[in-house]
């Protein structure tokens, strides 16, 4: 690991499409670049790659990602895999890392956050049963591991992601009971005319739908899962239908409502955030060029706003231009203009898609559903706490105190807050990812001053920003 004081030019956090492109381009422009990534190999979630005998037997699923990873290494990026960033020190100039229990740190002039997104799951009663999975997990099981998540599986929630997940399940022999889309994105109306501006996207939807139709898989719009049933495993789900509710016998349920930017590290660094009026989530306030409220912190990819791999890749290239300029490196004007154009075009397509998938009325999680999976706290208990202050919710109900640090319950909390007019979000705390106590202890010895630089600055949610947060509350340091 880099010794204290030997700063590099840029540290990129996250090895998905945006992080790989940003790191490759920055190293190519002459910046000393470190790329920190949690996984064993680069790719992130989108370009998650097969390995071992699965790769040998089933082939490379992500050739584009493999090529990109090779370019990152060839460009001379100092790639630190299996390494997660759990905290910051030195007013955010130093990132604290953990590599399988081995503590480390990186000090850089600029930080590029490409921390990606989490799946957004809204709770329904019974979703804590084994066999309920996120669509992304069902997909990776099918594509990366070649394992069927169940024999008969329902895919439900909302978002463009549900269709390809259902197709991937067919490919591993799953009987897909159906795709339930809560919105009505595929309706034909005035808004659908916008499709002519995004032909590639529409063609892809059509391709998935044709594939599902050929397999006899119904795609139902305006439908939801109301409850999951079973004793030790999913046995059935209750879903809404045209003539009231009915039950589907399934042994697994893939349930997801799109994605939520992983903004924990940005919050810890004190980047200003703004409220997303659709999901209730707090998003990092970022300029088109990737700049945040902190001149030494930039964002790229899904953490800057959900838009998919095309937008993430474009933002990766754009943020490399911005970072290179801030470092005083030469950036060809033509390349910079191309990067900016790509971001604009991809964002238009992403905005159109998001508008098509708007769900009206927005879903309200049922009172008897478990909201906080870690601490087994129900929606009703959280609503009953009668407060909008997330720390108060934590103190009164324990919701958000578990090891997932609120990542799983935040979408529901934000959704409830939005519906009730009281947005909620937990302030980021160290460690932002679970790390061994030994790592914390070693960091504590090396860096006595371990305070986050700022409380989360927040323009859109008055009164909910907390002051500087104590360190590592759960670990008893």
């Amino acid at each position, binding site marked *: 690991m880099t010794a204290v004081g030997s700063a590099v030019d840029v540290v990129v956090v996250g090895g998905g499409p945006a992080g790989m492109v940003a790191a490759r381009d920055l190293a190519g422009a002459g910046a000393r670049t470190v790329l920190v990534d949690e996984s064993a190999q680069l790719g992130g979630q989108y370009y998650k790659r097969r390995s071992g005998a699965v790769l040998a037997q089933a082939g490379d699923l992500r050739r*584009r990602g493999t090529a990109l990873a090779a370019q990152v290494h060839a460009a001379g990026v100092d790639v630190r895999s299996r390494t997660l960033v759990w905290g910051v020190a030195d007013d955010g100039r130093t990132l604290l890392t953990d590599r399988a229990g081995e503590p480390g740190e990186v000090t850089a002039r600029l930080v590029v956050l490409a921390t990606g997104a989490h799946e957004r799951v809204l709770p329904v009663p019974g979703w804590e049963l084994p066999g309920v999975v996120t669509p992304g997990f069902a997909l990776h099981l099918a594509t990366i591991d070649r394992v069927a998540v169940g024999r008969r599986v329902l895919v439900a929630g909302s978002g463009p992601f549900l269709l390809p997940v259902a197709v991937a399940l067919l490919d591993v022999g799953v009987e897909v009971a159906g795709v339930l889309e809560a919105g009505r994105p595929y309706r034909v109306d005035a808004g659908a005319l916008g499709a002519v501006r995004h032909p590639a996207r529409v063609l892809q939807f059509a391709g998935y739908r044709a594939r599902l139709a050929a397999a006899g898989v119904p795609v139902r719009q305006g439908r939801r899962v109301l409850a999951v049933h079973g004793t*030790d495993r999913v046995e059935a789900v209750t879903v809404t239908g045209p003539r009231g509710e009915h039950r589907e016998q399934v042994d697994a349920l893939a349930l997801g409502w799109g994605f939520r930017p992983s903004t924990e590290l940005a919050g810890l660094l004190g980047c200003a955030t703004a409220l997303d009026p659709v999901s209730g989530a707090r998003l990092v306030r970022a300029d088109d060029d990737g700049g945040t409220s902190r001149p030494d912190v930039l964002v790229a990819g899904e953490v800057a706003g959900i838009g998919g*791999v095309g937008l993430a890749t474009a933002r990766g290239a754009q943020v490399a231009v911005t970072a290179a300029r801030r470092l005083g490196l030469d950036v060809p004007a033509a390349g910079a203009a191309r990067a900016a154009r790509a971001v604009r075009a991809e964002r238009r397509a992403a905005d159109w898609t998001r508008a098509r998938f708007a769900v009206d009325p927005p879903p309200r999680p049922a009172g008897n559903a478990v909201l906080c999976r870690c601490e087994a706290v129900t929606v009703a208990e959280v609503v009953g706490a009668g407060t909008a202050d997330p720390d108060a919710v934590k103190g009164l109900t324990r919701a958000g105190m578990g090891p997932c640090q609120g990542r799983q319950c935040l979408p529901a909390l934000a959704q409830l807050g939005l519906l009730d007019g009281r947005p909620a979000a937990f302030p980021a705390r160290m460690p932002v990812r679970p790390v061994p106590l030994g790592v914390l202890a070693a960091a504590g010895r090396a860096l006595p001053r371990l305070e986050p630089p700022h409380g989360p600055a927040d323009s859109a949610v008055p009164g909910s920003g907390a002051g500087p947060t104590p360190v590592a509350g759960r670990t008893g340091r």
Partner: protein
Amino acid sequence: MSGSRPAADRHGPPPAPTRRRWSLRGARATALVPDVALEVDGRPVPATSGQSLLAALVAAGAWSQRLHPVTGRPEAGICGMGTCQACVVTVAGRGAVRACGTEVEDGLQVTTAAGRERSR
């Protein structure tokens, strides 16, 4: 992806790995040939190197992976990416690990909640 293959589902899954898929019926994946053997709760479970331990557990139908620390009910991984902690199992010599972040290896001895329940 610099526009080479615009994806409708911008967040996830990519187009098919190969072109063969353009038969609408689709091609069933050929089954993998196992090359490692795990021991899950005392039973042999075949797996293919490169798979995650969680995938091997799912393939073996081992869905009672952990007992919930508060409710005591069996639970299993929901996210597959290290967030939920519900797939934490015991691996001999390593202690508690997240199955999603562990690669299968020959001879790996795994104890799940179901195994602990049985041995009680």
